[in-house]
Each structure stands twice: as structure tokens, then as C-alpha cells.
């Protein structure tokens, strides 16, 4: 199918974009890589009189890595994330997730900002960024604020981006020593959204015991879900076998999957349980090697 008629704007600066957003208000929508928005427009599920393509704005495509961590511009594509060596080194979960999103064509166009701002509980990067403790920079005409990844996602297709704001940067703190992350995704075929996905970030103490752990789930509820109760289970523990089952149960009890064509709640919980164990194992192995 083909979209309804709309007017296309392609501002070259953030200021220009803010003034267009101001001028057209509720009649306008930001377009980044278009890989979520354009399918909705083409199927006429969504239409908007004014589309503001932010793709030509300078300065939003950088990946900057420094002592305090990474600053990733919102227009950085999923492919860029996937191929950036330092990202894979510092944040393996980002690399794991990026390389499993859709297919290469979609990854070449889709952006990190769009993946987050769309608020789709099936998108893979939100869970990763929640476990990595990322902070999002939101700019508006004459100001900016930051939002914690863990508080940013409100409901299905609903985030903390207010109208008139543009997500410009994703800031991720540098991981400490013996810290590692991992992302695993259960899916039917390459290129599919997940049946469930899970991100894990683990920090080990000097003695090899777990100091802190965060896990978050994709496709397991109306929005990204952070697994609770992990610290009590894992803190001070060294042996994977002694915690795997409990971590798995914690992940399953945090999840709120629903019945759909891809499976029943019971099946999805089973998948989440296995994913949690496999991802815990992978993250622990990676952390030990650091």
C-alpha cells in the first residue's frame, strides 16, 4: 500500500527542526530512519500531514568514546552500532542486539534514536540500554533535559519524549572492571522480532563474586521490563549453578507476556526462563575474562 498525502520537511539544523515542530504542532511527526514509521504510514494505520525528517541534521551521527563512557548520537544507525569495534568491546550487549535487529537493509537505515523513541516493546535496544544504565538527552527549543532509560518507557508506543522534543544523544557510563553485558534473543527466523529477548549486565568483585546485576526483557510486556529481585539472589555468589534456577524464576515472575500467534503465556515464560539462564551464563563468562 501507499501512504496518505503528507508534506515532507527536511531541516538541516536542530533549530530549524524545532521551529517546524513548533509551527505544525500536533500535525507533525519526526522521521529518522523510517523503519518503524514508514511501514505504519504505508499501511495507513498512521498518517500525519507534516513529516519532519531529521536525517539531514548535522552532528547527530557521532559515536564518542571517552573516559566516562560513550555518547552516541541519536541518528547513529543500527549498522554503525553493530560494526563499531569499541562498542562491541565495552558494551557487548549492544553489539549482540544490534546484529540481531531485523535485516542488514533495515539496520542500514534504522537509528538508535528511533529504536528507542518508538517505544515498541519488541525493539531490542531499550532492554540493553536499561541494563547499561543509559541516560537519554532530550533537546527542545531553547533547552534540554535528561531522562534515565529505566524511567523513559511508559507504555506500548509511549515514551517520555514530549512533543517538540528531539532525542539527540544516548549517554552510557563506562563499565567498571570485571563488568560485562550480553543480549540474547529467541526468534523464529533471522530478521524477526523476538518471541522474547533478554539483556544482562553483571559486575564482579575482585574475588570473582557477583557485585551487581541488572536484567531487562524485550517482548515480554507492554514495555521493556526490568527484572527485579536479582541482587538478593546473586550478590556475593560465584557459582553459576547455585543461582541460575533462581534468576530464571525471577525473570519469569517479572515478565508479563501475553498470548498471541507466536505462543501462549506459558510457552513464552518457558522461553524467558531459558533465556535468563543462558544470558546469565554468557555475561558471567564474559565478566570473568575482563
Amino acid at each position, binding site marked *: *500500500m*501507499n*501512504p*496518505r*498525502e503528507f508534506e515532507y520537511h527536511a531541516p538541516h539544523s536542530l533549530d530549524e527542526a524545532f521551529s517546524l515542530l513548533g509551527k505544525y504542532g500536533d500535525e507533525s511527526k519526526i522521521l529518522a530512519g523510517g523503519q518503524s514509521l514508514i511501514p505504519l504510514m504505508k*499501511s*495507513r494505520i498512521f498518517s500525519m500531514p507534516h513529516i519532519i525528517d531529521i536525517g539531514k541534521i548535522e552532528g547527530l551521527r557521532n559515536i564518542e568514546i571517552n573516559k566516562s563512557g560513550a555518547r552516541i548520537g541519536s541518528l547513529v544507525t543500527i549498522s554503525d552500532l553493530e560494526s563499531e569495534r569499541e562498542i562491541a568491546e565495552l558494551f557487548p550487549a549492544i553489539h549482540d542486539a544490534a546484529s540481531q535487529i531485523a535485516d542488514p537493509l533495515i539496520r542500514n537505515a534504522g537509528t538508535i534514536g528511533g529504536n528507542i523513541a518508538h517505544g515498541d516493546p519488541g525493539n531490542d535496544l531499550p532492554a540493553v540500554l536499561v541494563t547499561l544504565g543509559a541516560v537519554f538527552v532530550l533537546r527542545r527549543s531553547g533547552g534540554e533535559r535528561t531522562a534515565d532509560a529505566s524511567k523513559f518507557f511508559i507504555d506500548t508506543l509511549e515514551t517520555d519524549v514530549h512533543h517538540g522534543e528531539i532525542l539527540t544523544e544516548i549517554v552510557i557510563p563506562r563499565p567498571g572492571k570485571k563488568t560485562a553485558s550480553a543480549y540474547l534473543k*529467541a526468534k*523464529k*527466523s*533471522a*530478521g*524477526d*522480532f523476538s*518471541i522474547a529477548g533478554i539483556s544482562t549486565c553483571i559486575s564482579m568483585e575482585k574475588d570473582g563474586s557477583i557485585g551487581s546485576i541488572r536484567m531487562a526483557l524485550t517482548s515480554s510486556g507492554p514495555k521493556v521490563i526490568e527484572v527485579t529481585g536479582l541482587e538478593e539472589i546473586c550478590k556475593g555468589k560465584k557459582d553459576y549453578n547455585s543461582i541460575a534456577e533462581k534468576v530464571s524464576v525471577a525473570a519469569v515472575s517479572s515478565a508479563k507476556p501475553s498470548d*498471541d*500467534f*507466536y*505462543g*501462549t503465556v*506459558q*510457552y513464552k515464560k*518457558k*522461553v524467558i526462563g*531459558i533465556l535468563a539462564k543462558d544470558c546469565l551464563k554468557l555475561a558471567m563468562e564474559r565478566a570473568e575474562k575482563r
Partner: protein
Amino acid sequence: MRSEKEMVTGRMQYIDDIVMDGMLHMTVVRSPYSFAKINAIRGGLNHTDFNSEMKSFGEGETGEETGPGETMFAGSHAFYAGQPVAAVFGKTKYESEDNADSVEVDYEPLKPIMNLNDSLKLGPVHGSMKSNVLKRTLLGKEFSIADSHIDLSDSFMMERIATNPIEGRGLVCHYDDNKLNVWISGQSMHSIKSGLCGTLNLPPDRVRVFHVDTGGAFGLKGGMYPEYAIAGFASMKYGKPVKWIETRREHLMASKPGRGVRGDITISARKDGKILGLKGKVLVDAGAFGGSIAEFSPRFIGYQITGPYAIGNVYVDAQALVTNKPPQGPYRGAGRPEASFLMERMIDRLADETGLDPVDIRLTNAATEPFKTPTGMTIPESRSFLQDAIRELGYRNFRKPERPGFSFFALLPASSPGEGARIRCSEGKVKVWLGGNTHGQGHEFFVKSLLSTEFRIDPGLITLEYADTDMLEKGEGSWGSRSAMVGGNAIIELARRIIKRIEKEEGHYAPEILLDGEYDEQDFVSYKKTLISYGANLVTADVDTYGNVHVKECRSYYDVGRALVPHMVRGQIIGGCMQGIGQTLYEEISYSEDGTLLTGSISDAGLPTAEKIPEFTVKYAENPSEFPHGAKGLGESPTIGVPTALARAIELASGKRIRNTPVRPDYLIG
């Protein structure tokens, strides 16, 4: 002629590449409900303008269609989600889609029948019927066996699947000078022509149908659809060319999907694995209307249910049942994979019951001489092929714990009633028209190969022309593993007539005489038999902790008679194996109980992707057929053999009994 590279990279002239002056684009407004009463329709072209009933269905047509037939637009009721309710037009695709908003329909949703159990249990969907049984056929004879040691019963379901070629349906109609000209992506120009003549009430000399490059079909494009007649009607009404191109979503909701077959089967056997009898029910999800293939399929499945085996007692109650879904259509195999699945699954079950090797049970039951089954099918001796297949596929080389799935089947091609063809030699070139229209299989290759041999001329002088119902008077279609077999037979027959004529006129035949002269032969070359051939597959697979199946190896051994163009044979087999894997693991058209389509996108409907491709071994036997070229059928073989062998491989890897396709991960680990 197109090269294979042009074909697979899409550099062809497809239907959507056709542009005409003043052309209108058609958008079809469809029922969102699987079953609804329509109180009023305002806007667009609708049933008050055009309400003729479907005529002539193409593949699977028996002439015994009982109805109720589909009207071109829904009238008082919409009987499936996706049924055309109105059509709108515009000078561009955009304008045409915008105009869909102007159609207002007042629907009163009704409770739909979405599965076979409800179809049997609940009252008829159509007021004109007493029950939902569209057609019932009893095959074989009721029996009882006194000395049976083992009676096994089981129930199997192959869900509906979309044909999903890369290119969906589409056509351009242009009514000009009192003649309706139609360019269409298709498998059979002559079926489309008779369908259009019937629905539009036009005499044959006022409809001309042209074939264009076709990007796959798999059964989708062998027959009539309401959209075709609506586009033709609109072109006549508006006096302009009209184009309609199906979207993928329309394909998934409103084209005719295949499979949708349940079998409740009981076999009686001795402890040594000899099967004494088979009885059961075959239930086909016919969809909302008669016609197409639904009346034919249950009988066809029942008829060949015992495949290559000599089983003395058979009794099948075969029924086509009405549901609130699009009418069933043929999908690669069209009844053959269904029959084989039911038989082969029962044999594997019997192996588990008796502790015998499933392949030994197959050997015990294979026909040692020509055998007429109680359902009336005569099969040639099959045991010796099976013995060869066991060896060629390396079955006995596997050692525990590695155990492959194995299948053995009979291919019943749609060789009857033959095929129409035309050969015209003029100005040193040989042009060929065929009644069965290539939709990506590469008919050009066998045409060139066969005719260059017959005429002793350079293959570069021979071209396969686009089919066209004015250039060729009679034709059947390309489906049912028939094209090289009966199409090839037809062109050889015509070539030999031309050669005879030259010999008569000139005293002898020489290629130069042919190329210097003018010759034109056309005919429908009849062939009224079903030329059965045998095939076997071996498949190995793993199942991981998430319930994902990984197919490791897929080996094929089919009797192709003679491989006319070996690399095309290989391509047919590998592509077909992937479709067999697709049916078994991923593909499905599914609805919720309330009739909402759950598989509205291609990723939901589940095509196998590149990472799923296993290691293939392609082997074939060449036991020449009675045709002058020696070839037998092939196209459907892999879709018959692979699902059954793969189902067994999964069963062995997972320990779960496999009764349904697709085999879903949630079943394997649930």
C-alpha cells in the same frame, strides 16, 4: 528468452511494469469481517453494478462444482475477511487508495466458522445448504479384518498456507474496439480467458489474454478470482485500461491458500509390519465457496492415500467443509503432500509400535507388481525403486543415536488431459507457444533442448513466446508437475508433424528446408493417463532448547524419467525442498476464533529464510517414461517427500509425536 540471472534478480517485464495511457489503478475494498451481514454499501463499484457468479476455475476444476459459487462482490453477506465488497479507481495508486475512504459499508458482524470441528457441528454458513458439507465422496469399500494384530488410530492437521510467490497476483485489462485485452501474471491464459468469458458474459472471440513475465505462482495463478473479473468489468464500463496489483496483505487475506487438511486415520497391521487395511476421514477446509479446488481435493487425497503401497483394504470418507475463509486453492502438491503425510506418519507410528525399522515396514508394504488400489488407482511396481532409494540416500549408513527421517511416495502428476502448443517456423526462426505458461520454472530450457534435437537446429533459433489466447487456440495450464511432460510431448508431436510434412513435400527432411520454409502447426495433444513416478527423501534435524528445529541435511532421490535440463531439475528439487521445509516448520495462515487474521504480514505467515537452508543432496533415477522425451513429473515431488521425512526427523530429535504442520516451537517445548 530470459537468463536465469535475469529471472532471479527480477530484471523482467512484470505486470506492474506495464503502463498505458489513461490507465486507472484499482483498489479493492474488502470485508474486515470473516462473516457479516451487509446492510448497505455506498460508494465505489459494488454488487449493485456487477454481481455475476464465478465461472471456470482452472486447476482442479472437475465440472462437478456444486456451489454455492462466489459472486464477484459480496452482496447481502461477506463470507470471508478479505472478500471484495467494492472497488475504487484513481489515476494514480495514491489517488485510488485515497478513494477507498469514500466507500461506506454497514456491516453486522456474525459469528464465523473458523475451524473444521465447528463446520461439522454448527449450522450451515450458506442458507442454501443443509449442512456445511460442500462435497462428500466415499472411496474404497468398508471392511473388517479378523486377523489384524495392531489397530492404530491418529489424527493429523496440515494448516492452511499461502502460496506466497515473490510476485503476487496482478493484471491489466484494456477494453478496446469491442475486445477485452488482458495482460496477466499467470499459469494458464486459457483458464483465465474462460473465466472472464463466463463471468463477463462475453463470447470467446471478444476476450484475448496475454501472458507476461511471471514472478512465481505455486498454484496461485492457475485460475479465476473476483478481482480479475472486476478489473475487466471496470475497463469495459469506463473505457480505460485498468490495472490491479495485489498487496502482500491482500495476498495473505484474500488469495486462495492451500492445504487446510485434516486426516483421522486408522490402520490395521500384522506384527511383521504388513498393513492390511486403512480407513479414515479426510476433511478439507474448503473456505466459504465451492469451485476452485475444494470439491476436488478430498477425493483426490483419498484416491491416492496409500501412495506407493499395496494395501488391500481401503475405505475413506472424504469431505470438503465450508468455513468463513477464502476458498481453498491449489498449492504446490495440491492434495499429494496431504495424502502422503497421512500415510507416512501412520507408517512411522507403526514402526514405533512394533519396534521395526520404519524403512523395513515400507519395504514390506511396497508393491511387488502393478497393483490396483481399492480406491481405483493403479500403481506400478514400487519395491525396487524403494530399494534403490534406501541405498542412494544412504539410509543404512546412519548409526544410533543419529537417526534420519525417511519418506517414500508416489507422484500422481496432472498429466491428463494433455496440452496445447503451436510451432511456427518463419524467416529462419522457430517460435513456440505453450498452453501451460511458465511462471518462473524456465520452460524455455526444455523447449529449446527438445526442439533443437528434433529439428537438428541451433537452440538459439528457437524462442518460447508469451502465451496469448489468440495465437494459441487451446491450452491447459502449468501445474501438477505436468509442463515438461505433456508440454514437451505436445511440442515433439508437432515438430514431428512438421518434419513429416517436409519429408512428404520434399522427399526428405533437412534443417535448412525447415529454416527456409514457412510452417505453422498447432494442436491440443491429448494424453489421458496419469503417469505415476516414485520418489524418496531423507532428512536429519536437531531441536534446540527453545524448540527451534535446525534441518541439517535434506537428501532427495526421485525418478524423473529423464532429466531434460539437469540444472533446472536440480533447481526444481532444491526450491521444492525449501517449500517442504517451509510448510513443515514455518508457514501458516491463521485466524483467531472470532475470525481476525493473525498472519497479515509475510513474517507472520512465515517463509523460510536463507539461514534455514540445510545441506542438500540431489540425486535422481532416470527410468524413461513412455513419452518420446522420456521425462516424468517432478515439480511437486519435494513438497510431497520433505514434510513427511522432516516430521519424522523432528519426532526422533524431540521425542514428541508430530501430527500437525507447521511444527511450532511452542509445541516442541510446551
